[in-house]
């Protein structure tokens, strides 16, 4: 039997070096970003364009949190804290950068240089968040389960309170240019009011380009020896250790990677036309992201991305469900989607692909949505009840329903494309192993 080194030496170069494998995902990211940027505004209005920018941020946030919560199984509840660090550092770069170099922050023709500043800010924000991830990762090595959750929750709150205590924002370019360093030393991030006038450089293109980058990075981590190491820690720390996995190294790595990607998400968020404020670091936001991850499936990247997309979209729809049926285009496009999914499902079934079940279930969703919209309209006209007033309750009910139906999240640890493929032969029955047991 050969050892691994000999096996590696045996791999032919043609197998090892495949430029397509290396490059195609990045090009796909670019194509998707360009496509979304170009075509989406033709279909939806300004309001929904903004919703899609926010959606992108949440997808990044959820996917990045999945690295530590889903892959490595270390339950972190302070992800919003990392995002806020990324957001503030990046916003600091672009706002004070334009103040310093341009003498003003509110300019339109500044887009190219502003975008450059934002990109620098994103990198800086991500590294700052990663540094914080390292600091949080270290003490949490000794903690497990609930205790780790509490520590990370505390971390998020510390960031929130720290941000509330930051100094006044400087609007006067002259004053800033005179003493940039001593001004920055006062952390001029405007305390609890929130960082103002950060220009929305992150348009649909940038948001979705980074969504793609974050997803490719997370996917490559998952499908690598490092990703297997993370998953093994989640499955059984004692066995992982005995198989030669350095728990310390990999747990800290998971925290740092998740924080880094979360920092990217936060940095983009700061440039989507919102004022980053201390509440963005709070546990409310952390919980929102945890919900996406748990609902999508701990360890499933596509699952979390889908959950983040759908839930963000749904909470918008719940603000005015009637608007779907009030515009014929809304009903028809939803009906079209449902029909396309149903036809796709039938086709897959015909060719013996097990993916038909997924599509069949998915095709029901738009139909339900339209029915729900009609119900909302009827309630509003006949009874004067506005369902949108109850949207938080409806949202919560929906979450409960999903958790009851799919306790492991939408997809568990699988990816959505793993649900497709040729029909598998039925499993042999009675093949059950013993349950997990406590430490030796």
């Amino acid at each position, binding site marked *: 039997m050969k050892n691994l080194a000999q*096996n590696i030496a045996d*791999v032919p170069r043609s197998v090892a070096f495949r430029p397509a494998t290396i490059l195609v995902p990045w090009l796909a990211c670019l194509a998707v970003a360009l496509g979304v940027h170009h075509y989406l505004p033709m279909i939806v209005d300004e309001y929904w364009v903004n919703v899609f920018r926010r959606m992108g941020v949440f997808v990044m946030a959820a996917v990045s949190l999945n690295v530590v919560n889903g892959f490595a199984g270390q339950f972190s509840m302070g992800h919003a804290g990392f995002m806020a660090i990324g957001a503030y550092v990046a916003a600091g770069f672009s706002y004070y950068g334009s103040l310093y170099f341009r003498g003003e922050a509110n300019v339109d023709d500044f887009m190219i240089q502003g975008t450059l500043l934002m990109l620098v800010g994103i990198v800086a924000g991500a590294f700052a968040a990663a540094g914080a991830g390292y600091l949080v990762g270290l003490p949490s090595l000794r903690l497990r389960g609930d205790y780790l959750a509490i520590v990370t929750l505390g971390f998020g709150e510390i960031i929130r309170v720290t941000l509330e205590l930051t100094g006044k924002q400087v609007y006067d370019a002259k004053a800033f240019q005179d003493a940039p360093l001593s001004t920055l030393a006062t952390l001029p991030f405007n305390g609890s009011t929130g960082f103002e006038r950060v220009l929305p450089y992150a348009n649909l293109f940038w948001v979705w380009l980074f969504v793609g980058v974050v997803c490719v990075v997370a996917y490559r981590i998952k499908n690598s020896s490092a990703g297997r190491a993370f998953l093994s820690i989640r499955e059984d720390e004692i*066995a992982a250790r005995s*198989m030669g996995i350095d728990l310390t190294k990999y747990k800290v790595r998971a925290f740092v990677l998740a924080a880094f990607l979360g920092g990217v998400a936060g940095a983009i968020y700061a440039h989507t036309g919102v004022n980053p404020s201390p509440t963005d670091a709070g546990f409310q936001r952390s919980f929102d992201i945890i919900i996406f991850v748990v609902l999508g499936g701990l360890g499933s990247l596509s699952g979390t991305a889908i959950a983040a997309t759908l839930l963000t979209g749904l909470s918008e729809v719940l603000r005015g469900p009637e608007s779907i049926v009030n515009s014929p285009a809304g009903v028809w496009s939803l009906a079209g989607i449902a029909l396309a999914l149903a036809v796709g499902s039938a086709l897959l079934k015909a060719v013996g692909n097990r993916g038909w079940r997924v599509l069949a279930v998915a095709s029901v969703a738009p139909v339900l949505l339209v029915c729900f919209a009609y119900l909302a309209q009827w309630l509003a006209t006949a009874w004067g009840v506005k369902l949108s007033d109850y949207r938080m309750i409806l949202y919560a009910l929906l979450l409960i329903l999903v958790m009851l139906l799919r306790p492991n999240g939408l997809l568990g640890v699988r990816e959505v494309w793993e649900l497709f493929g040729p029909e598998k032969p039925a499993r042999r029955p009675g093949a059950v192993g013993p349950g997990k047991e406590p430490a030796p």
Partner: protein
Amino acid sequence: MSEFLLDARNISIAFGGLKACQNLTLQIPAGGLYGLIGPNGAGKTTAFNLLTGVYTPQSGSIHLDGRPITGLPPHQIAKAGLSRTFQNIRLFGELSVLDNIMLGCHLRGRHALVRTLLRTPAFVAQEAAMRTRAMDLLGMFNLAHLADEQARSLPYGDQRRLEICRALATEPKVLLLDEPAAGMNPSEKKSLAQSIRFIRDCFKLAVLLIEHDMGLVMDICEKITVLDHGCPIAFDVPAKIQCDPRVCEAYLGEPAADQPAPAGGGPAA
């Protein structure tokens, strides 16, 4: 320095007042197939935990291939060449059978973040090599057709063999097996005995075996250490162990060969 591949001398540990392992000496030469037996709660699993670094011995020393490994963390001991299976199966249940084995290959590979993210040729070659190696191992244990199944969906006997397979993937010098036959039926036990011998010869490693099935132990082990209440009470060839009065006494006065294995290999640890 010493002629033994694994050389543990006088290792001890106590949990509070309970002396789980006292002055245990285990010395296994290269290519040896040794046994470690004793009644339930005698401290056999604890001995494995001491050897593999799960617990640090309170006294005594452990050398592997001449290198001191006393007090090293488990992952470094694994890297040094000591691998084990668990009495209560500890597979990575959600992962596929193939991934379980590839994880075993992990510690002989290199995993820098840059090559992982950029999918460099070195990375692709290593993944391909790990896969080949894992499939070869699975093929050897007749598990190749189950490569894509979730590990926890396997039948009990297959799970046990998968654990051995995973331990072998780490390229160990010494393999520690903790009750590998527990829960197996007689024919499975027979083929297990063959595979253990085969593993020893094919991978050129030393094996230390904990087992309650006396037939199996007496059949394949060259020498046997007997533990009772944490103390080693005998160390000899199987024939002598069988008629050693101290051993019979430890097993409640019954002849050791008639000692029944615990039903279903219940979780005694």
